[in-house]
Each structure stands twice: as structure tokens, then as C-alpha cells.
């Protein structure tokens, strides 16, 4: 079976990387703030979720910047599963999960992350908003 090389880095538009750094800087005195406590891969996944939830149009990166190492995703089975389910949900073709489609797989992820990052950053700026969202969604989930 042919071996395919998985990209080592997950990318995002550089402007969002910069914005994320700005938020981190803003809250650097508060190590308990979400932005300081969350790994980049979770923020990335969350951005993809936002894009899917609000059916946002995938956006090509004007200038790519890496945001996390894909190896980190591979080591975290739960996150990888969610990641795969999200990309499949967008592409609606299970082949996207095949190694031969690594490039496209990460490209879709990048575009979706770009699309949802604006909302994600906005939420990250306010811990209260995130907490409110977690609470509302949790209660909704349990009701269903």
C-alpha cells in the first residue's frame, strides 16, 4: 500500500494568528483566562465548528501561518475523531479521511478555520460569553 505523508503543520490565515497573539498578550497577566489555558488545536477545532454551525463560506488564507503541529492532533484521539467528523461533515465524502487526501483534508480545515475564526476570537475575548455558551449548550444537550 502506498504511503502518504501527512502535513506536519496545520495552517491558518496569518491575520488570525496575529489577532490570537494580541488576545493572549492582552490577557498575559491572567493565566487562568481561556486564551491562556486552551491549546491552539482546540481553538482551531472550535473555529471549524463555528464555520459549520453558522454555515460560513470557507476562506482561503491570504498568507498562511502555522498554528499547531498535526502530530499533537494525532496524539489526542478524541480531538482527532472530532476533527475528522467535522471535515467529513463538510465534504460529505468519506474518502476525504483517506491518507491520499491529506492535503485537501487540511486545506478544508484551514479554510473552515479561517471562516469561523472571527467569531471564535470574539468569544475568546470574553470569558463570560464562553461560559454562558457552554452552559446554554450543555443544558440544551441534556434536554435533547
Amino acid at each position, binding site marked *: *500500500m502506498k504511503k502518504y505523508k501527512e502535513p506536519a503543520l496545520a495552517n491558518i490565515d496569518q491575520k488570525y494568528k496575529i489577532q490570537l497573539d494580541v488576545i493572549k498578550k492582552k490577557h498575559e497577566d491572567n493565566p*487562568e483566562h*481561556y486564551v491562556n*489555558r*486552551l491549546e491552539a488545536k*482546540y481553538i482551531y*477545532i*472550535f473555529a471549524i*465548528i463555528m464555520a*459549520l*454551525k453558522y454555515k460560513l463560506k470557507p476562506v482561503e488564507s491570504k498568507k498562511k501561518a502555522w498554528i499547531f503541529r498535526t502530530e499533537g492532533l494525532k496524539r489526542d*484521539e*478524541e480531538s*482527532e*475523531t*472530532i476533527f*475528522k*467528523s*467535522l471535515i*467529513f*461533515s463538510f465534504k*460529505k465524502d*468519506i*474518502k476525504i*479521511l*483517506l*491518507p*491520499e487526501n491529506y492535503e485537501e483534508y487540511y486545506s478544508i480545515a484551514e479554510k473552515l478555520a479561517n471562516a469561523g475564526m472571527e467569531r471564535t476570537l470574539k468569544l475568546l475575548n470574553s470569558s463570560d460569553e*464562553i*461560559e454562558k*455558551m*457552554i*452552559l446554554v*449548550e*450543555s*443544558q*440544551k*444537550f*441534556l434536554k435533547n
Partner: protein
Amino acid sequence: MTLTFELDDERKQKIVFSRTMQIKRVREHEKTSKGAIMSQLSDFQFYIDSSGKYQNFDCIFYEGIEQKPNRDAEKIRETFFPGLVHEYYLIYGERFVDPGNSEKIRLAIERNCYSQIFEKIKDNLENINTVLIKDSITDEKKKKKYVELLQEIRDNNDLINTTKDELSTFDINAVEIDKAIQTIDRKIGSSGIEYESLGKKRDDLGIRIKSLNSQIKNIDKEIMGSGFKTLIGILAVNSQKNLELELGKRIKKGEIPPHIKTEFIDTLIKKKICICNRKINKTEKQKLIELRDENVIGEYYNEFLNLNFSLKSLESKLKSEVTDYLKNVQDVEDLRLKMIEADKEQENISQELKSLEKTKDLEIERKKFEKHKKDIEREKDMLNRQIQDYKAVVDAAKINIKKLGVINTTNRGEIEKIIPEIILKLNETKEAIITSTRKDVEEFASQTYKKIYESAEEVKRIELDDKYNVRVILKKSGKDVVKSKFSTGESLVFAISFLTALRRFSGYTGPIFLDSPFSVLDPKHRVKVSLNIPKSIPGQLIILTRPDTFEDVKSKLKEYTNKIVAVVKEKEWHSKMV
């Protein structure tokens, strides 16, 4: 009130006795050898003083407009105020006459009935005796010695009197200090123990708050970490379900794992033959290609199966994660509420402790008073020893006089007998006058108190015992009840009654100044007392009062009011008469 005396001498001296009103003397006062005579109100004129310095009945001495170093205030008061006026006829609110200070009351009564006059008479008699003896001595040497011994006796007697005066001042102070200590003790009461237990409670709460805080912090951290991941899980549920469904379909179809190897299909496509060795057409080839592509997924069947397991595991875990998250949130909320309550309680305790911290100050104050009391006791001991020393000198001088043998002169035998008898009688008379004055003051003060005081129906009488302790006897349910503690208003009424009685028996007729008598009374008592004061106090009354407390009583006092003088504040320290 400020009493300002301007002296028409070359130095243009002025003395300001400061309170809040200004008075100028318009007629020269006459000084006698015993002090100044009682002044009438017509001797004074109100005027505005703008010296700008007001203290609590202190004396400021001026020459021209220049303020001079503080002279002995007591001496100035003695000189410029008639003896009784400065001491007893000016009431400074409720604190002037303290019903609890028996020493002050004793002095007031004894001075009012001129008991010192008897001492003077006794001195004079002694002098007569001395002169007679001196004149009868023919031996010059003995005469000289006698005169020297007499002088020694006189000097030492003077010293004894001065020292006794000093002692009585110390006695007054000692009574005041005892009272202050008693008041402090009452204030401190059980608050010391309370302070300690509250302090412990506050410390315990501090530990509890710290522990709650750390619990909240720990759960918060957990919530923050798990919360976001849980949110991702919740929001990705549909995507996971879609993928799970897709995988399920494929598994059902047998694609995962694959029935056939992809390489084998590839070989068939390349060789363009079927398993049965038949040549395949284009359509069949296309089908084989599709089959091979589908089979690729099957080739990764391990990964997809794992993915399927992982999806199922995520699904089953998510519910408990969400439940745990919400439970943690609820726990934090509960802990926060507990912390708010603990914080509030701690705040309340801190407030209580703050108020109880006054206890500490009171204890410090008490120690100061105790120290002062000890100082006074030491001073009193010293003065008593001095008196004993002076008395010993007097006794020794008397023995020496006897030794001189000059007293046994025959021509003064009768006098020698009479004078001690007269002195004895004088002492008895003095005691009788003091006692009768005390009784009269007791009786009159009692009547006045009953007339003025609101609850007069309850008051039976005021008692002044032979030690000058004041008691109000109330009649309650047919029984006599002794009241020895006075409220501020009661103290004021007692003070007014007492000084009215003193004035009556002193023979003086000068006006009575009442400085802000109404402000210490509540509105209900104010009206009644204000109406009763002019009815009960004969003679002229000058009442100094603030407009707010005067409004309530203005109409009631109208028929007794001769003149109302308003002092209007123009600016700081400057007022004008209207």
C-alpha cells in the same frame, strides 16, 4: 458664650472668657477685700467680639490688641468674677453640676452659707487672745520669743489651710476620676470577652473563606479546561453522528473490512480479465475501477473501525462530561454563595470588632485614669503628711508657749476661758448653718426639681445626705424607689434646681445664665421643662439657645420673655447682634 471684660486702665487690658456670646462690662465693678461683689445684668452690655479665638471657658488675656501669654485662668476668674458666680451660677449645659460629685456639692453648699466666715472669726478671736497675751508679757525676751512662736503657728496654720484647699481640689478630682473609671468599666462590661470570641470567629471565617476560595479555584480550573472541550463535543455531535452513520453503512455493506484485496482488483483491471478468465468489456472495467476505489476505504479498515469505536466512545462519554460539567458549575455556584455569606459575616464581625475596638481605647483610657488616680493619691498622701508636719510644728510651738509660762498671767484668765468656748460655739454654729443650708437646699432643690421635671408626679423628693450624696426618691406603686443615676436631661434639671436653691440661700440675686439647656432634652420634655423653668426659678433668667431648639419653646416662653437677642453668624468667628 464669651464674657469679655475690658479694663479702663492705661494698659487697655481685656480678658475674654470664651463661649459663644460676648458681654462687655459697662459699670466699674467694686472689689472688696473678700472679692468682687455680685454683678447685676445691667452692669453688662452685649457686644460683638471678633478676636477669633474661642475655647471652652478659657481666659485669654489681652493688653490692647495684643494677646498676652496665658495667665493663671483660675486666678483671673477669681479676680474678675464674683466668687459664687464663676463657680456655681454659670451652667455649661448638663455637665456643669454633676449630681454624682458629692465633693463639689459640699463645697457649693458650704461656700454659699459663708461657713468660711466662722473660720475668720475664729482667727480673729485667736488674734485677740494673742494680742492680750503679748501685751501682758513684761519680759522682752519672752515677748520676742512668744511673738516668734505665734508667727510660726500662724504661718503653719496658713499652710495647713492652703494645703487643705489643695487637698479638697484633689478630692474633687479623685471623685471625678472614680466616676470616669466606673463609666469606662460599665462601657467595657462584657465587651472584652465578646471581642475575644468575635476575633476567633473572624479568624475561623478567614480560614474558611481561604479554603472556599481554593476549592472554587480548583473547580474553576477544571470547569475551564473541561468546559471548552465539552462545548466542542456538544457542537460536533451532529458531525460525529453523520460520520458514524456513514461508517455504519459501509460496515453493513461489508466494505469495512474489504471482501477482496485492492491489488487483486488492480491485477484484473490491468489484465482485462474476469476471475473466470473471461475478457472484460469497458463497462465491466469501469465497474472494477469503482469497486477498487471503494475498496480503498476498506483497505484502511483498521483506522475506520477505530474511528467508529472512537465516535461511539465519544458519544457515550459526552453525556457524563456534560453532567459533570453542570454539576461542577453548580458546585462552584454553591461555593460562591457560601463564600459571599462568609464574606458578609466576616464583614459584619469586622464592623462589630471595629466598634468593640473602642474597648481597647477605653482600656487605655482607664489605665490613664488609674495612673492619674494613683498620682492624686500620692499627692494627697504627701499633702496629708505635710499637714501633719505643720500641725506638729503648731503643737510644738504651743508647747513652747506654755513652757514660756506667759499664758498663766492672771489678768487674762477670763479671756482664756471664754475664747475657747466661743470658738467651740462658733464651730457648732458653723456646722448647724451648714446642716440647715444643706437641708434648705435639699428642700428647695427638691421642690424646684419636681416643678421642672416632666415626671414630677413620680418624684417624691431630692435627698442630700450628710456626705452630700444626691438621691432622687421616686414614688412607684406606693413604694419609695431610690434613683441615683441621672440621664442627661435629669442632670440638667437637677443642676438648675440645685443652683436655684443655692442662689436663694446665698442671698445673691444676680441673673442665672442657662447655656443651651434645651438641646439636651428631647422635644417632649423640652416644651414642658422650658415652660416650668421660668415658673420655678425666681429672678432674672438669661437663656442661651440655638434657633432649632428654641423654635419648639418660643411660643410657650412668650409671656415670660422680656427681650430676645439674636446672634447671627456672618462668617467664621464673626457674629452680629440683631
